């Protein structure tokens, strides 16, 4: 690359070099934009070749089902990553939401039977927790990684407290019908997840709030000067992320019919990897709902394929770790003056 530049340099003026460099950067940018799609196609081909029944409706539905929970998590996480922050509390909130909802609906441990009101209560509570996290981040000027890490630990603690070390078994008929029901062979859980994703995507693309998230991640100073209430937007984003984590936790509980803190374990990191692979940037301002969708799809196919190949499930996490490091290195941006250390 440098050799190419040196050759060009010999015969040109600085101004010509500058335009050349700008064109080169634009070309690289284009490649980066289509890389995730190419990756998806490659991954699909790999999967299809190891699995005869890959393109059947049944298998596609299965894929969608497996995507469900990560997709819901990716909604909130996309917003947070667009800001350039991170939310390490997702696993804690998921575990807490799942445990608390199990506690409140019909279950084998206590005599509660709040049904739908229990679910609504949990959603509101978790959203408030997220808002609180946002307030701490913005007003006390604490970096997102540390404040969400602490809140995550606290929420995990509360989760275990709720079920007092004895995981709660759910016997709520509503959960039963949701987890068993399907439409056109697509399970309700999948439909609900995709609906949540759609809502999140629409808000991101079609509201001023959504655009403000992009703006803050890309150029916070300019956004503030434009008169946008950056603090409020950030608080809303963290509230939203906690809300989607909560929804994901509730769906997990519906699926597994059990309430315990491990509902959230190992759920966040794969989604972060998925978003980055899909084209999102850890530094903010880049990415979106569509990119995250592609990323989650790639991740799901990869996870499936690894399981098919008989790879150790713990090793899967290692591979994901490697992937994210490679992905972030390839999309590295210089000249970033943030506090991300």
């Amino acid at each position: 690359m440098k050799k190419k530049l040196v050759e060009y340099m010999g015969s040109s003026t600085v101004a010509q070099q500058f335009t050349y460099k700008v064109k080169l950067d634009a070309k690289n940018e284009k490649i980066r934009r289509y890389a995730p799609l190419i990756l998806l196609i490659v991954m699909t081909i790999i999967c299809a070749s190891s699995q005869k029944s890959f393109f059947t409706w049944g298998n596609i539905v299965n894929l969608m089902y497996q995507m469900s929970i990560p997709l819901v998590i990716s909604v909130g996480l996309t917003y947070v990553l667009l800001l350039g922050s991170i939310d390490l509390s997702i696993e804690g909130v998921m575990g807490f939401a799942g445990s608390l909802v199990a506690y409140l609906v019909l279950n084998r441990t206590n005599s509660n039977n709040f049904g739908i009101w229990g679910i609504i209560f949990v959603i509101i509570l978790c959203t408030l927790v997220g808002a609180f996290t946002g307030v701490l981040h913005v007003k006390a000027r604490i970096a997102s990684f540390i404040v969400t890490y602490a809140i995550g630990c606290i929420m995990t603690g509360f989760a275990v407290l709720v079920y007092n070390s004895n995981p709660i078994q759910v016997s709520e008929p509503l959960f039963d019908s949701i987890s068993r029901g399907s439409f056109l062979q697509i399970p309700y859980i999948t439909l609900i997840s995709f609906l949540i994703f759609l809502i999140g995507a629409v808000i991101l693309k079609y509201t001023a709030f959504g655009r403000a998230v992009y703006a803050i991640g890309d150029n916070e100073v300019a956004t503030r000067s434009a008169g946008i209430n950056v603090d409020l937007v950030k608080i809303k984003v963290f509230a939203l992320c906690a809300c989607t984590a909560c929804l994901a936790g509730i769906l997990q509980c519906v699926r597994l019919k059990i309430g315990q803190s491990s509902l959230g374990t190992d759920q966040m990191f794969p989604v972060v990897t998925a978003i980055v692979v899909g084209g999102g940037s850890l530094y903010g301002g880049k990415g979106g709902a569509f990119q995250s969708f592609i990323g989650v799809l790639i991740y799901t196919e990869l996870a499936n394929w690894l399981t098919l190949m008989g790879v150790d499930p713990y090793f899967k996490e290692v591979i994901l770790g490697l992937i994210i490091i490679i992905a972030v290195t390839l999309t590295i941006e210089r000249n970033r003056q943030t506090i991300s250390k």
Partner: protein
Amino acid sequence: MTKKLNLSDISYSFSKYMYIVSIVLVFLVFTIMSPQFLSLYSLQNLALETAPMLLMSCGISFVIFTGGIDLGTGSIASCTCVITGLYVSQVGNSIILLMLVVGCVMGVINGILVSKLKLPSFIVTLCTTNFWNFVALRLSPSGSQIIPLNKRSMVNWATKDVIGFPVIFWIALAITALLYFIQQYTVFGKTILSVGANTRATRMAGVDTDKAQIAAFVICDACCALAGAFYAYKLKSAVPTVGLDLNLLSIAAVALGGASMVGGRGSVLHTLVGVITITAVTSGLEIIGCNALWKDIIIGMILILAVCLNSDSKGRDLIIK
């Protein structure tokens, strides 16, 4: 030049004297306690409990001083605990040195990824965490494995009492002193805080910031590896889940010591005070019969409080993400 008293001045003073707040907290906890708490036996127990934590907290302090974070400390400890527990009976005590080397290698990997590739440290350490977890769980898939009784003689020396306190504790104390010496009196130690305060300016001043960051991770991970080995000696078994809580506790300890979470301010000695505080709080909770499930919640809240009080944004108007 008149100085107006404002919130950032107050929080700056707070953070300078945070460790005093911590000591006060410890005394408070003690007074709530029954006097048996201060008996030699429980202090010995406390010392045994604290030793590995102390190592980890002092190690992670260095990374936090440079403005980074290491979210994999617990996993490293788990990993080395398992390896030590499983193989000490065959390899002998030299396994401790081996773990130290392993820790250094881990630190170099983390450090290079953070400094050369400019990746955020929380992501890097989350990634490498997966790897250490994998190793720990792979080697000991069915839970803890105790060191066979006939080989116990090899490891018993570590928990034996010398001058009233277990050997591990003295070793941990010695290493803390060494780390303090490094921080206060060596070139490297001086540049660490500088790197955390303003990496760019430190680089422009002609300091090798990459090397400093790598060295910080090496110290951190080596200490964590050592702490894991000590856990194996203490628990006399290979425990793959020993590190689960440790990360939170060690970070909270550093915060309670008044260090700034975004780097530039802190001291190993103050972290020592933070460790004592954390241990006192956790033991105290046990003694007053508090439900063990509240431990994480309370520690998490203490961490948030400590970081809020420490938050020193004066002179730093970088955008916080």
